[in-house]
């Protein structure tokens, strides 16, 4: 099957959606399908052979953070060319409702279109204003995928209709087989995420730390992620700062080893999460997970069966739960065991098969993808110049 995937965000900037697309493309290629990914990227960035650049992305504030997006004539032309040259059986657009490549591809294509909705924002004013403009493009999508039940609910609220839920995939084996690092072991808490982004929740964890460190004198915190380290520990008493270790940005291998090594992985995110892939990765690596009770997290953790939940933004609840977990190896082993059974549904084997099933379902009764020659009236009157082309 020839599959075209459209990535809305810059390929050179790391992010959940980009990683998901990379893993999906590589999984499909391993299964023998022809895959081409259209993604915004700087012209000098080295790209894997299956990625086609859609030009440079422009940083604009969108959706609460600065996103690097594509729009304008040049991008639209590149989308059309990609569609024309690709000869795809199906195209898979990610984030079709964001003002970027996804939406452009939706405009420009016709035929079987699958779309994955990653974000789940509460209804925004921009969405309401854009609804009549979006609708003609979105109604071309033959199959919608939401990454979680929560994302599906917001999608149905915003745009009506329905979607199937297929979670994001994780290479479970990669995390399960990672070797623990001795210096990261021994009563350690782990945190991975941007340090300076408050919604990742590090400040909440910092508020809980004094209590945790007082109750567990041997405990340490390992933090992996970009950001200002001094500012992050500013609220912490001087003598405790030595027990927080910053690892900076870590490679994928080190991330897996870190998750294998820590006793408890803490995810204190305060909002804006639609899935929580990091939790699945932590579960795959066999870490006991302690997460805030966001809808998306509760769902990934099977309502608290595969990991512990605490009330969002409640530092005391976080401290209490962390102290209990650190002091109870039996409970941690139980969570580990349940977690490793639970993550099987997130493995690429399962997720990839489901996504392929969607592709096959939409291509069953339809022609292949083509550029949408919206010649409209002219074509119908027989006056279009490029009519003979197809």
């Amino acid at each position, binding site marked *: 099957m020839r599959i075209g995937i459209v990535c809305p965000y810059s390929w050179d900037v790391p992010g959940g959606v980009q990683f998901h697309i990379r893993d999906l493309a590589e999984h499909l290629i391993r299964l023998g399908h022809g895959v081409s990914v259209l993604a915004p990227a700087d012209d000098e960035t080295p790209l894997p052979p299956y990625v086609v650049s859609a030009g440079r992305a422009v940083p604009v504030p969108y959706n609460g953070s600065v996103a690097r997006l594509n729009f304008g004539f040049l991008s639209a032309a590149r989308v059309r060319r990609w569609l024309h040259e690709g000869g795809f059986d199906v195209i898979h657009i990610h984030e079709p409702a964001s003002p970027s490549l996804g939406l452009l591809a939706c405009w420009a294509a*016709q035929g*079987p279109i699958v779309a994955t909705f990653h974000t789940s924002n509460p209804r925004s004013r921009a969405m309401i204003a854009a609804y009549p403009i979006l*609708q*003609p493009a979105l*109604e*071309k999508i*033959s*199959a*919608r995928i939401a990454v979680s039940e929560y994302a599906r609910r917001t999608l149905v609220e915003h745009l*009506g*209709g*329905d*979607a*199937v839920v297929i979670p994001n995939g994780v290479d479970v084996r990669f995390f399960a087989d990672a070797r623990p690092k001795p210096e990261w072991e021994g009563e350690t808490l782990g945190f991975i995420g941007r340090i300076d982004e408050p919604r990742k929740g590090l400040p909440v964890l910092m508020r809980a730390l004094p209590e945790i460190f007082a109750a567990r004198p041997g405990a340490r915190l390992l933090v992996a992620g970009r950001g200002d380290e001094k500012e992050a520990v500013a609220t912490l008493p001087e003598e405790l700062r030595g027990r927080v270790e910053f690892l900076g940005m870590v490679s994928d291998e080190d991330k897996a080893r870190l998750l294998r090594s820590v006793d408890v992985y803490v995810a204190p995110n305060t909002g804006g999460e639609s899935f929580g892939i990091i939790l699945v990765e932590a579960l795959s690596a066999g870490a006991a997970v302690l997460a805030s009770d966001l809808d998306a997290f509760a769902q990934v953790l099977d309502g608290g069966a595969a990991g512990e939940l605490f009330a969002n933004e409640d530092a005391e609840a976080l401290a209490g739960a962390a102290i209990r977990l650190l002091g109870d190896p039996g409970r941690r082993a139980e969570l580990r065991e349940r977690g490793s059974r639970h993550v*099987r549904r997130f493995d690429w*084997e*399962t997720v990839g*098969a*489901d996504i392929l*099933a*969607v592709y*096959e*379902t*939409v291509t*069953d*009764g*339809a022609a292949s993808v083509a550029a949408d020659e*919206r010649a*409209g*009236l002219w074509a*119908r009157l027989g006056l279009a110049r490029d009519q003979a082309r197809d």
Partner: protein
Amino acid sequence: MTTLIWIAAALVLIAVYLSWTAGRLDRLHSRLDAARAALDAQLLRRASVAQELATAGVLDPAASIVLYQAAHAARQAEEEQREVAESELSQALRAVFAESAQVEAVQEAPGGEAALGELTEAVRRVPMARRFHNDAVRAARALRRHRTVRWFRLAGHAPFPMAFEMDDEPPAALAARTV
């Protein structure tokens, strides 16, 4: 003179808008046809595999009869009874494959593994295809209710799209299987 030009311009604009809306509607109708065809294919596939399993002699006689009867009815159903017949097939499948022991028994029979794989695929894809179909129905209905479409009869004689409502809950023992 200027008035005439204005009127002509307005007429052209209206014509372009109507043509564009008709194009949208046309595309929605073909998406609907494709979704319906895909749903039909999945339902038929499910009924065929169920019937094959029922006649293969790997299930006990009672289960075989129940499954055969339901699969046969689903394949033969008239358009109006289709939703009911397909729902009954779902119920029959759930009743037959209620326990994982039954699934294991089929697995051990020669060719059972392949047949189960096909059935698992089918019971997973029916709900998918149905969601996509009903999503297309909703989109087409939303546009057809628009006054431009109603006043200018842009939909022509195409029948008003109807959602396909049925019970498509897969049997628990099969849903847990990884394909």
